[in-house]
């Protein structure tokens, strides 16, 4: 088993292959991501950060190349197993957060556990712990639309953590936050790293990629990684 948590070998993702509108958001990328590090994927809009994040997190499959999660090639796993690996290994914080309006903070955080074989009480206990950790205890019964931007961001993080994943993948997490809240968010990510979790952040926000808290930056351009990882 590899020392690395996730390894990408010559991963390419092509859309509309062979047609005039063919795009390669990710082109021959090789990357090692270790345990307990904060890695930033930096690059201008359209450079392929979100696509790479989706590949790392088993949301989509590569058109070619290999993706090893804990030493196991996941590229050819059938859908059910891929969902299983994704669920057990990764927690996503989406750019648009994608919380469900009309239901409470608690329910939003518990939602990923609903289809799993875990009792309701245990699921609730785990969700409350995370809500507490992220300083949202006083908001647990609120509907998400009643929360501030920073609070919503933390609900999304709590939901990403509910499956106790080894890695958190966050796409442009500071896009809707001011400088103060962005700083707080970086503190949260640092705490997670302290707990041994891997954090991968896709961003073009200098507040993030110039932060002293991060371990490594990979710069992307036109689907390729320029430097940083070797």
């Amino acid at each position: 088993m590899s020392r690395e948590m996730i390894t990408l070998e010559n991963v390419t993702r092509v859309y509309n292959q062979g047609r005039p509108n063919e795009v390669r958001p990710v082109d021959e990328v090789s990357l090692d991501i270790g345990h307990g590090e904060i890695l930033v994927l930096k690059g201008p809009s359209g450079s392929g950060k979100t696509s790479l994040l989706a590949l790392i997190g088993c949301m989509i499959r590569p058109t070619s190349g290999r993706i090893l999660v804990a030493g196991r090639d996941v590229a050819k796993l059938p859908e059910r197993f891929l969902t299983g690996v994704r669920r057990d290994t990764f927690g996503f914080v989406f750019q648009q957060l994608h919380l469900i309006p009309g239901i409470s903070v608690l329910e939003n955080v518990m939602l990923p556990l609903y289809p799993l074989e875990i009792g309701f009480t245990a699921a609730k206990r785990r969700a409350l712990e995370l809500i507490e950790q992220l300083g949202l205890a006083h908001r647990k019964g609120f509907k998400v639309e009643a929360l501030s931007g920073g609070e919503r961001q933390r609900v999304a993080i709590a939901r990403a953590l509910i499956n106790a994943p080894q890695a958190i993948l966050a796409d442009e997490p500071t896009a809707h936050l001011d400088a103060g809240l962005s700083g707080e968010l970086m503190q949260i990510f640092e705490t997670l790293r302290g707990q041994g979790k891997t954090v991968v952040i896709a961003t073009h926000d200098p507040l993030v990629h110039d932060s002293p808290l991060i371990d490594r930056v990979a710069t992307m351009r036109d689907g390729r990684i320029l430097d940083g990882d070797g």
Partner: protein
Amino acid sequence: MGSYHLGRHLKILEFALSSMLRRRTKNLGLVLVFAALVFLLSSIVFLTGALRTEALATLEASPQLLVQRAMAGRHALIPLDYGELIARLPGVGSVTPRYWGYYYDIYTGANYTLLGIGDQGLESPGSTPLRLVEGSFIMPGQRRVCLIGEGVARVRGTRIGGMVSLRDARGWMQEYEVIGLFASPSRLLTNDLILLPEADLKAHFGMPDDRATDLMVEVYNPHEVDNISRKILERLPDARPISHAEIQRTYETLFNWRGGLLLAMFLGAMAAFMILAWDKATGLSADERREIGILKAIGWETSDILELKLWEGAALALVAFLAGVTAGYAHVQRFGSELLMPVLEGWSTLFPAIDLAPQLDPYALGVLFSLTVVPYIVATVVPSWKAAITDPDRVMRAS
């Protein structure tokens, strides 16, 4: 392990119910439309079931061959001599005179059927389809007593020990003590029925001693009924033999005609239902689509989403179905199926007073269930399934 598995389904069910509450306006609207359609359809099912039961019960109670007498094209009293003549025909068993007539009650505006019970009938009460629910049967020789159907008891506000007064042929009020209440498989048959001792009945209508209302003829071999009818007509030109089969044909004609109308209504309602289901099928809101995408992205499998939508569809459809069927049942039972009456007008020519007993026919209910609940659930699950099989990464890009 097992309880964990149950927990999984319970959590999905819980979320399904909370999602329905979240979209309560839309779901309430759907329940109302669905329930209204099930109400209409189940009213029709209950009504046809009830009418068919009535007809069958009436038919069972009717004799192999009934002989009446026609005068100037109308039903007239038949001489008992006719009975003696008929009894001598080969193949004929017994001939039993029946004494009955209609009575219009000016106070309640109701029509009653008065039926006389002779000593012969009294000796074998089991030979009638009537069943006493309370009280006792008329004893041979007993006079000035009566047995009444439950409908009469209700209209008259009488119970056992009470009196029923009827104005006789001379205009005098006669009182009869109620000694029993009866029921039968058919309410149409007994609802308006008052049973009197034969002698009282004859006196009431002022019938001559040598006449009866009609004659019930027992025929040994059912195949010979037509043959015997012909022989009766040869000897007694003013007799009118009516066979069991003829009564049956009359009912069937009526049923085919009525049934056709009901079927047309049924199909109309089904069409409306299909439109609702189709609308639901094509009308997955952007909101619902987005939510399915989110669930997919946070680790729900396609099958989990299907289960969620199945619970939602099933819960809505069951609530609406039960509400619709209950309302349909109450409607047919309590309100004499007023809404459907225009279609059924004319029944009164055959059945004077309709107070129906809706039939909980499991087969008909099953058909209704599979024609409404099943298409509805399919219609809700299919588009959700289509939305759920897309790649989970779509939400990473969706705004």
